[in-house]
């Protein structure tokens, strides 16, 4: 389980996180929402040690990672994978090489086995036969799919999604959401997603947390979250037009 205790972070002298307390349930899909610039991505980066808090603790299982570095931190990171906003595929490698990259670097798998696993993951994300292409030749949605295949290839326990549908049209965004949910159900990893996609996220998330003024304003199941009486949160989630019913997107 990932647990943040009293996490504070300033960037350029401005407070971004001001005492975040958050527990991510194991095996569930938790979505963090909040206004632009509220620090959602910063929060996500603290969970994997890409950023260190000025104060507070970040626990992954029974390891406190906020002061770890080098090989100790890398040992913890082996449980993780992350899908970045722009997918962060390596430009100089093909899609196949991108997906194979963690396997070649971090596993004992040999050539044919790597090839089989990569083809399998590419097929799962709908990119079968696209392995020879370079990231620059892919559309935004295809890049996200390739990024997801790379995140899945090591079969991690935890996957972090940083705004996985940013910049995609609504249909493509829905297909990426569906893919995340399908993979989450199939592999049972713990998923933490940062998203702006309201109301869609209520249909796919088990838990929803809202970051406001540097703190977690509310964390609840998707259904309970929509029933909150907090006027600010109600206003925020109703911006999407209508309140979504749980399961309206998937299934």
């Amino acid at each position, binding site marked *: 389980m990932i647990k943040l205790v009293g996490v504070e972070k300033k960037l350029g002298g401005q407070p971004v996180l001001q005492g975040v307390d958050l527990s991510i349930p194991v095996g569930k899909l938790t979505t963090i929402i909040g206004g632009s610039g509220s620090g959602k991505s910063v929060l996500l*980066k603290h969970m*994997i*040690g*890409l950023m260190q808090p000025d104060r507070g603790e970040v626990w992954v299982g029974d390891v406190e990672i906020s002061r770890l570095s*080098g090989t100790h931190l*890398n*040992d913890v*990171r*082996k449980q*993780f*994978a*992350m899908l*970045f*906003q*722009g997918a*962060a*595929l*390596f*430009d100089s490698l093909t899609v196949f090489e991108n997906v194979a*990259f*963690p396997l070649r*670097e*971090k596993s004992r798998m040999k050539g044919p086995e790597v090839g089989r696993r990569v083809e399998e993951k590419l097929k799962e994300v709908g990119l079968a036969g696209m392995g020879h292409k370079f990231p620059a030749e892919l559309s935004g949605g295809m890049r996200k799919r390739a990024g997801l295949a790379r995140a899945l290839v090591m079969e991690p326990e935890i996957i*972090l999604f940083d705004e996985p549908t940013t910049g995609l049209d609504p249909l493509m965004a829905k297909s990426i959401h569906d893919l995340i949910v399908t993979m989450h159900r199939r592999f049972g990893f713990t998923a933490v997603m940062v998203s702006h996609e309201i109301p869609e996220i209520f249909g796919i998330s088990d838990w929803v947390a809202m970051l406001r003024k540097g703190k977690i304003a509310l964390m609840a199941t998707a259904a309970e979250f929509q029933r909150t009486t907090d006027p600010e949160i109600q206003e925020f989630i109703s911006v999407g037009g209508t309140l979504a019913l749980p399961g309206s997107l998937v299934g």
Partner: protein
Amino acid sequence: MTNAIEQLGAWAVMRVQEMGRMVLFMLSAFAWLVRPPFRFHQTMKQLHFIGYRSTFVVVLTAAFTGMVLALQGYYSLRRFGSEGVLGAAVALSMIRELGPVLAALMVTARAGSAMTAEIGIMRITEQIDALDTMAINPLQYLIAPKLVAGLIGVPLLVAIFDVVGIYGGSIVGVNLLGVSEGAYWSSVESAVEWKDVYGGILKSISFGLIVSWVCCYKGFYTRQSAEGLGTATTEAVVLSSVLILVWDYLLTSLLL
């Protein structure tokens, strides 16, 4: 007045901190270099990029540098009736100073700026963060091979620069200006000593390190914007070039 002193102090502290970060960056990269997995393939790739792909521009620069040196040297030496030592003048200038300095400046312009841009783009597009999340240290995977390639590639390019420059000088001196071929090459042979070559090698190794170190550092800490990337590339080229010239003076004063 107090305000101005405060600002100057703050600027000085910032510079010292930056220098400290730069040194730590290089030491960390070297520390990761000796830990497995060893990045032989990455290092070869970088050596190809920094070394082999800079060869053409280095040969071109060296040839014309040697030629102009012979041209200038010939008319200066003729006034004293010493055209016979033209070979020595060209060879010593090339081996001691011009070879290491100009080759390093050309590598900075061609490969150094490209290194900064490549690493900077990787930073902006979160590819470096992606390496981190895969438990792969970016200093080991990205930076250390470039530092090694700079350390090996630049001395080899300087050797090519010296040889081509001396031949360029002979083309102008011997073939165009009529200096005796025997006098040209025998003066080269008698004037150049091991300590000249040794000094040139020492300079080229340190210049190779300066180019790859500064350019990698500036790329690695690029600010997250297109403007930031442009600034980082400019700063990398300017700082590398200035450091090469300053270090050249210091090293020369120690070697003489």
